[in-house]
């Protein structure tokens, strides 16, 4: 007899969709929907500034003026472009460059975080309240 033993030997999951699968998938879909709705309705104010945090050093830029900001962090170079009230990373030298493919933030609330470069870009409203972050996993 092969194997190392254990209670798992006595059964194998089925290879056809079961009622339990449907319940599990439905529960996950419901939780996802609830989370999405709570995030969608929790932010209403239009952002007017962005906060750029590089290795815990913070600086704020207005979204009303077009600009291109060059940043270097953890050996990677980034260019953050502000154009027509939106901010996005136009170029990045981080390993996967996922942050450069993120949707612009500004017209909508949101943030861009590049973990390899320890860079966080967050939208701020008039009162200076921050927003949630979109995390780029390495």
């Amino acid at each position, binding site marked *: 007899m092969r194997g190392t033993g254990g209670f798992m030997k006595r059964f194998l999951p089925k290879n056809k969709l079961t009622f*339990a699968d449907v319940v599990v998938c439905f529960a996950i879909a419901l939780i996802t929907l609830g989370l999405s709705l709570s995030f969608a309705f929790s932010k209403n104010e239009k952002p007017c500034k962005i906060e750029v945090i590089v290795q815990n050093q913070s600086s704020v830029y207005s979204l009303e003026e077009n600009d291109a900001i060059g940043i270097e962090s953890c050996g990677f170079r980034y260019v953050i472009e502000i154009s027509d009230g939106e901010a996005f990373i136009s170029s990045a030298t981080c390993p996967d460059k996922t942050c450069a*493919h993120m949707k612009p933030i500004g017209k909508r609330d949101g943030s861009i975080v590049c973990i390899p470069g320890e860079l966080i870009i967050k939208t701020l409203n008039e009162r200076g309240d921050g927003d*949630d*972050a979109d995390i780029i996993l390495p």
Partner: protein
Amino acid sequence: MMRTLSSRERIKLICRLSAYLSFALILSYVEALLPAGLFIPIPGFKLGLANIIVIICYFGESPLCAFGVSLARVLISALLFGNLSSFVFSFFGAALSFISIFVVSALLKDKISFIGLSVVSAVFHNIGQFICSAFYVGSLAAFSYLPALMISGLICGTVTGVILCVLPRKIFFERNFGSSK
């Protein structure tokens, strides 16, 4: 109760676990080459093909063996293709994914199929990574991105679950009962 393996059986087990690990690493590499982001534009999106091997090992060998293979895969993947931060993220994801497989398979036993199990595993893998990122960034803000990755977990879990379902059940049974018949 776990029985003691003879030295011959132990060698066979080590060989099989090495094969599992190699398959898992190959699938991780293939996954990295696939332009999955073109079809589902979610940053951090991964199919999780290596999870297929972990689940086969879980039911074919034992939960402990599957955990060892999963941990070794994460470590070797980080050494070959990643860095320290990718190891920490993958470790959290793999650990929570493994715990979810353990809990669901223990609770639901033969009521659940590979599809449900893979979906739960994929979703909890993402949750594990997000708990890690929340610690990394020092904010719960990371969770705003969680719904998107939960959807991707649902899709990817279904894909890997279907792959597991179409695999011949022989590959599990042979490991458990093959030579006892």
